[in-house]
Every structure is written in structure tokens, then in C-alpha cells.
């Protein structure tokens, strides 16, 4: 791979896949984590432990499962998502979701009980209560999103299994590094690695600035 417009396309694809997967996982995980953090229900401890266990799911195992599900003979083969961007987004969505949900749940649970009581005594309930508490926990919620994005942008196992690392189609920065390394092009692989590092650093810098502004 030459360091020209192609690397920018690959980097753009990385940001698109990981960014969209994180946005979708946040759209589901933040409300789910908020509800789980607020409600005291039977089995919450089990659910919390289960979510934490999912943090450790190896991406390559998730990729393998999705490969089997999305392959032509698999139950989800009809979608035609194997070796597509959509399949990669699905893989990263599933990878990120437990992190965003679990960390949001922790951020809400860890809010001071007196703060929650004060919101209730001021008349907050249902929607207004949730909005107030999410706003209070916004720093923790944003951290959950950042951890999710970090998990997505840096993983290689799931996207290489589901995406196939097809040049001009499903190749992203991490899979390109694997490809160049396997070919013995260490200079190119190192350059891609530095580009990946710089790209994710810029995204994290922006998110950190946003986090500090919300303090």
C-alpha cells in the first residue's frame, strides 16, 4: 500500500465503521444503562456481572460467531452482510454495546443517593428524573462512549473475520496493518500503525475537550 489517497480512504473507512458502531451502541447502550442503573430489580446483580463478563469477549470469537451466522448457510445469511461494511458495523456494535451499557449503568448507580433524593423531592419523575440524572452523570457517560470507541477503532479480530479485509471495500486501518505485516512490509505497517494512533488520538482529544466542557 502506498501512502497516498488510499490510506486516507482506509482511515476514513475505519472512522466510519467504528464511529457509526459506537454511535449506534450509544443510542442503545446509554438508555439501557440508565434504566439498569436506576431500577432496582430482581436479577440486577446477575445482569451486571453478565455485562462485565461480556467485556472480556475476544473480538475474534465474536467475529467467528458472526461469520457463521452471516454466511450463506447461516440463519442470518439472507441479509448478505458477510464481507460487507454493514457486517463490520454489526460486529463492532455488538463488541461496544456491553461497554457503553455497563459503564453508563455504573455512572448512574454511582451518583450520590442524596442527589437522587433531591431530584425526587424537587418534583422530578420519569423523563425529567432521567434527564437530570444523565446530565449529572454526563462525564461518566461520555467516558463510556470513549471506551466504546477505543474498543472499536483498535480491534482487528472481528472486522477481519466478518469484513474479509478486501482492498477498496472492507479494509480498515487495523486489518491493513495485519496485511502489510504478513507481507513483510514492516515500514508500511508501522506507518499505518502511527496513522491509526494519530487518528484515534485526535478523536479522543475532541471527546476529552467535550468532556471537560461539560464539567
Amino acid at each position, binding site marked *: 500500500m502506498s501512502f497516498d489517497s488510499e490510506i486516507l480512504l482506509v482511515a476514513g473507512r475505519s472512522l466510519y465503521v467504528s464511529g457509526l458502531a459506537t454511535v449506534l451502541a450509544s443510542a442503545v447502550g446509554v438508555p439501557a444503562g440508565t434504566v439498569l442503573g436506576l431500577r432496582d430489580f430482581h436479577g440486577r446483580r446477575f445482569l451486571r456481572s453478565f455485562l462485565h463478563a461480556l467485556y472480556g469477549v475476544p473480538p475474534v470469537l465474536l467475529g467467528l460467531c458472526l461469520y457463521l451466522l452471516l454466511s450463506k448457510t447461516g440463519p442470518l445469511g439472507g441479509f448478505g452482510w458477510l464481507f460487507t461494511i454493514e457486517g463490520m458495523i454489526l460486529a463492532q456494535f455488538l463488541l461496544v454495546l456491553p461497554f457503553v451499557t455497563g459503564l453508563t449503568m455504573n455512572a448512574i448507580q454511582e451518583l450520590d443517593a442524596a*442527589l437522587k*433524593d*433531591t431530584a425526587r*423531592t*424537587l*418534583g422530578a419523575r420519569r423523563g*425529567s428524573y432521567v434527564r437530570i440524572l444523565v*446530565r*449529572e452523570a454526563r462525564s461518566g457517560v461520555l467516558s463510556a462512549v470513549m471506551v466504546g470507541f477505543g474498543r472499536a477503532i483498535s480491534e482487528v479480530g472481528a472486522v477481519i473475520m466478518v469484513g474479509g479485509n478486501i482492498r477498496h471495500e472492507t479494509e480498515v486501518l487495523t486489518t491493513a496493518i495485519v496485511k502489510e505485516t504478513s507481507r513483510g512490509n514492516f515500514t508500511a505497517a508501522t506507518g499505518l500503525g502511527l496513522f491509526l494512533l494519530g487518528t484515534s488520538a485526535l478523536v479522543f482529544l475532541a471527546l476529552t475537550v467535550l468532556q471537560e466542557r461539560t464539567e
Partner: protein
Amino acid sequence: MKAELAAEWITKRYGDRTVLTGVSLTIARGEIHAVLGPSGSGKTTLLRIMNLLEAPDEGTVRLDGEEIQVARAAEPLDGMRYAARLRMAMVFQKPVAFRRTVVENAALGLEIRGRPRAEIVERVSAVLQELGLARLANAPARRLSAGEQQRLAFARAAVLGVDFLLLDEFTANLDPRNVDVLERAARAYAREHGGGVLLVTHDLFQARRVADRVSLLSEGRLVESAPKTEFFESPKDPRTRGFLAGELAL
């Protein structure tokens, strides 16, 4: 009917431990009712039950004669009980500040109630002035001192203009100047606004300074309840006399 908030025969247990046993007391509008008692006597639990934050195991809470809390009532509050909560506000012992500016904190309850913007601005600026917080209006509330945060907590409750203010050791651990500001504000709330104030405290001197009526709670039971002068000058129950003597000797 005279507006009043009443706890009737409240019993509350946590597991095997009985925190309150058959406690009844009433707060009328325009009066400050101090509930005295040593730590662990159930004062805070009683306040939380009256504010509908917790349900009793036995007994009821009535507002203007209407039953608003019954034994083992479930959350969330239904329409009638929610409307009752909107007529009360509570200030906790620990200062609570939301991650907002001082003015946003003070306006929070009015915003939840959907009051018009102009009214919120007017009422909030008046209450911040009264509590000596006007110059800090745009400061982040979490950066205030503990005393300022507690004054803000009082302002956030008082600005609502509710019928009943429930104050849980609201001046504990504060310096005399902040205590003075808050006590004056509580008195003004009862005298000028005509609100009923239930003040939970272990400070006998504070009860003497601000209360119209005083009750003593001990080991989860109401020992005695009387107008202030009668309570301090001629207590009927020997436990009250013992409590007053013990505390005054400190």
C-alpha cells in the same frame, strides 16, 4: 380546613430493626415544628416518610386531611401523591449541588414544574438575594463552600413556595454565620410566606431559637410534643427532662 401535614401512627422497620413505632405528629402552616432527638432516634426516617421518599410499614401521612401515603405504598407516585409531593420540599443534612451554576440549581424545581421563564428569573433572583448568593449566581455550584451549598439547597427548596418545608439537620456542621442566615430564612418562610416548617435537629439551642412547637423522639417513639415554652419550661415526661438536662449539661 387549616392546611396541615400530619404523620399518623407511623411504624417503620428495616429488617428486624424497628426504627419508628407508632409516631404521630402534625405541622401546621405558618409554624416551625422542631423534632429533637439523639442520633438514631428515627428523625430522618420520619422526615423521609412524610416527604413520600419512603413508605411506612404501618400508619399514614395526611395532607389537609387527605391520605397521601399509606403502608407499603409503591413507587412511582401516582397523580394524587405526586401532587402532594409538589406541595413540599426537603433540604438534606448533606449539602447537595447539581453540576450546574448556582442560578440553574436554584431554578431546577421551578423548571420541573414548567413555570414561565420570566417568573423563574424573578423568583430565583429574589431568593438568591435573600440567601446572600446573588453575587455567585453564575458560579458552578459544586465550587461553593459547604455553607454556601447548603444555603443554595435551602434557596432551591424555598423558591418553590411550597406549603411545607422539611429540613433535615440543615445547619449541621456549618459555621455560625451560615447557621444564622439559614435560621433567619426558615423563620421568614414560616412568618412571611406562611409555610409550615418541620425542622429535624439534635440541637436544643436551635429548637429554642426558631421553633414554635417542639417534639422529642427517642428510640423511634414520640416522647412528648408541646409548644416551645411548655416543652422547655415544664416538660411533662421524665425522659424529656432527662434529655434536656443531659444536653444542657454538655
